[in-house]
Structure formats: structure tokens, C-alpha cells
């Protein structure tokens, strides 16, 4: 009875520890729209000595550029980029507190941007159960871990590829609708000009004061 209580206590403790670890690692990727003359800030609470990465890419809008500022809790600027299309910045937190990543489109007057952002804090949480046997890792387990890391990078490359493709595709769709609008407008303009010219010319010759010479 005592032994089983001990085991359950240990299991509970281990589960809590793992839950604790899971609670300290976050990775959020968001794609949001940044209207013109707007600034959007995202805040994340980071503990000291945690390696974090901020990654962003502008998907659509204008010249595909945005201003980025990453600030520490004491308002110290850790990273600043002006009119950049995409970048990735890894940093280690030197103090506990709330770090902020701000994206600004204040320099643009009419183009709103679609921005992809990935703010990941800490390492990926380990699978439940793996953390308990940290002393001996079999070759099978370490190979599986390698495969997992490679698949993570494959997924990462896929995300970047998807963003680039989305950029190209939206540009193409934009161009397509613009060509249609432009061709209709131009045809209408040509017709109006032609009819207008004839009407104006007719007007010259129907006035009471006759012109003595042709234009």
C-alpha cells in the first residue's frame, strides 16, 4: 500500500514536472492583416535565458515591406528593421518579463499588408514519457528523434514555400482582375472619346457664326 502510494506520488510528480515544462514552451504562428497607418503589437512573457525566435514575412500588399521592432521589458530595442520583407531573428532573453514584437505599416498611405509572424519561445516540448528515461537513449529512439527534427525542418520549409507561393499567386490574381477592369475601362473610354469628338465637331459647325476655315 505504501509502495503503491509512493509510486503514484512519484508518477504524479513526474507528470506535473512535464506539465510544467510544457507550460514554459510556446510557439505561435499567426497571419494577420495590417491596415495602412496601423501598428500591431504582440506581447509574450519570456523567462531569463530562454532562446526565442521571431520570424516574419509579408505575404501581400504594396511593396511587401513592414517595419519591425522587438523590445525587451526595459524598453531596450533588441532588434529593429525598417521596410523589410522577411527575416528571422533568434535571441536569448537576458531578463524575465514581457517582450513585445511590433509591426508597423505607418509609412504606407493606402496599401494594407498581410503579415505572417512566428514567435516561438523555448524548445519544443518533449513527448510525454520520453523525459523520464534521460539516462539511456537507445539507438532506435535517437534515430527517431533525428527523423523528428528533420520532419520539423521539412514542415518549416513547406511553410516558407507556401508563403512565397501565396505571394506570387495573389499577385497573379490581382493582375488578372486588373487586366479585365482596365480593358473594359479603356474600351468605354475609347467609345466615349470617339462619340465626344464627333459631337464637338458637329457643335463647331452648327453655331450661328460660321467658321471661315476648317480646323
Amino acid at each position, binding site marked *: 500500500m505504501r509502495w503503491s502510494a509512493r509510486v503514484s506520488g512519484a508518477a504524479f*510528480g513526474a507528470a506535473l514536472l512535464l506539465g510544467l515544462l510544457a507550460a514554459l514552451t510556446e510557439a505561435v504562428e499567426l497571419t494577420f492583416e495590417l491596415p495602412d497607418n496601423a501598428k500591431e503589437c504582440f506581447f509574450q512573457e519570456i523567462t531569463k535565458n530562454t532562446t526565442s525566435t521571431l520570424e516574419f514575412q509579408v505575404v501581400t500588399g504594396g511593396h511587401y515591406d513592414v517595419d519591425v521592432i522587438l523590445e525587451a521589458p526595459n524598453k531596450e530595442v533588441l532588434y529593429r528593421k525598417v521596410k523589410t520583407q522577411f527575416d528571422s531573428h533568434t535571441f536569448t532573453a537576458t531578463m524575465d518579463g514581457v517582450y513585445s514584437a511590433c509591426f508597423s505599416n505607418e509609412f504606407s498611405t493606402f496599401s494594407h499588408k498581410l503579415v505572417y509572424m512566428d514567435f516561438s519561445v523555448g524548445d519544443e516540448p518533449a*513527448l510525454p514519457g520520453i523525459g523520464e528515461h534521460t539516462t539511456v537513449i537507445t539507438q532506435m*529512439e535517437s534515430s527517431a528523434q533525428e527523423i*523528428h527534427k528533420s*520532419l520539423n525542418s521539412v514542415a518549416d520549409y513547406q511553410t516558407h514555400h507556401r508563403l512565397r507561393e501565396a505571394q506570387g499567386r495573389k499577385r497573379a490574381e490581382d493582375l*488578372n482582375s486588373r487586366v479585365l477592369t482596365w480593358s473594359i475601362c479603356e474600351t468605354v473610354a475609347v467609345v466615349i472619346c470617339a462619340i465626344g469628338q464627333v459631337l464637338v*465637331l458637329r457643335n463647331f459647325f452648327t453655331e450661328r457664326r460660321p467658321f471661315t476655315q476648317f480646323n
Partner: protein
Amino acid sequence: MNTLAKILALVLVICVKLATPLYFHIGETERKCFIEEIPDETQVIGNYKVQLYDPRTGGFMPSSPGIGMHVEVKDPEDKTILSRVYSSEGRFTFTSHTPGEHVICLYSNSTKWFSGTQLRVHLDIQVGEHAIDYANIAQKEKLSELQLRVRQLLDQVEQITKEQNYQRYREERFRQTSESTNQRVLWWSLSQTCVLLAMGAWQMKHLKSFFEAKKLV
């Protein structure tokens, strides 16, 4: 062992309160939308928490049960697939049935007309294999570590395959759009030339008959 468990529990409780996911501020009447471009049959789980600004302390109240959060999810064809009002803290989940851009919009169910106080929204959106809870699966199906790891790898590979398939579908759409633009430009230039020639001919004919009627020609 029991005291250790108690200490760990205490630390965990403290850390759960401190370890908050990403947060941002919105006005009470403001609407914030996020776009997720996902393949079909992909599960998306969103965890959120809303805090109301407390003017007395100048900070945000730790929990504000009065506010409700309206979550609206639209699929690529602009059809609403989820539209519900949740409490101030909770999670929403949906599975995509068509590949493409899904728009997740959040706004509070405040009835004010003008922008009221600020709201702090903690948000965490997990897509695909990140949305799977492996602890739950390990417990339910009684899998060993290696089996769980293999299950994770299988899920990852499945998600990668779905994404590749979606990539093929998107490339097809891109190609169709480009070919349509090509066609449109060709037709436009031909019709534009025809319209110009027709207008020119009509102008000449009309003016000739006009001047003949005026006895100037």
C-alpha cells in the same frame, strides 16, 4: 515523495498563471481576424483568454467572467463554418473540409456603440499535428515511448503529405490564373484594335454624311 509532489504542484500552479501564450490588445468593439491557409481535413485548435482593463489598478483584471468572446470561422468560399459565443476563457476547434484560406475572427460581445475599454486577448492557435495531444493518446492506447514517437512521426508525415497535395492544388490554380490573364490580354488587344478601327470608320462615315447634309463638302 508527497511533499515533493506538493511543491511541484504549487510551482506548476504558479507557472501556469505566469506562462501565458502570446497576447495582444484590442478595443472592446474591435474585430480581429487571423488567416490560416490549411489543406483539407486538418484540425485547428485555438486557446484564448480575455482580460478586461481595470482602470482602478491601471492593469488588467486576472479574470473577467462577464465578457463573452464571439468566434467566427469562415472557409475559403466565405461560408461560416463556426460562429459561437464563448465565455471569457476557452478553446474552439474546427476541421477544414475544403483546402484554402480560413479566416478566424474574434470580437467581444459588447453592446457598446463606441470603442469602450481595452481588452487583452491571449491567443494560441495550433494547426494539424501540433493540435494532437500525445499525452492523451499515450494514456488511452497504452503506447510505449517508441510507439508514441513513431505515432508522432506518422502524424507529421501525414500532415506533410496533405500540405504537398495542397501545394499541387494551389499551383494548378496559379497556372489557371496565369493562363486566364494570358487569354484576357490577347482578347483585349484584338478587341481594342477592332473597336478603334470601328470607331474610326464610324466617325468618318458620320462626319461625311454630316458635312454633305450641311452642303460643305
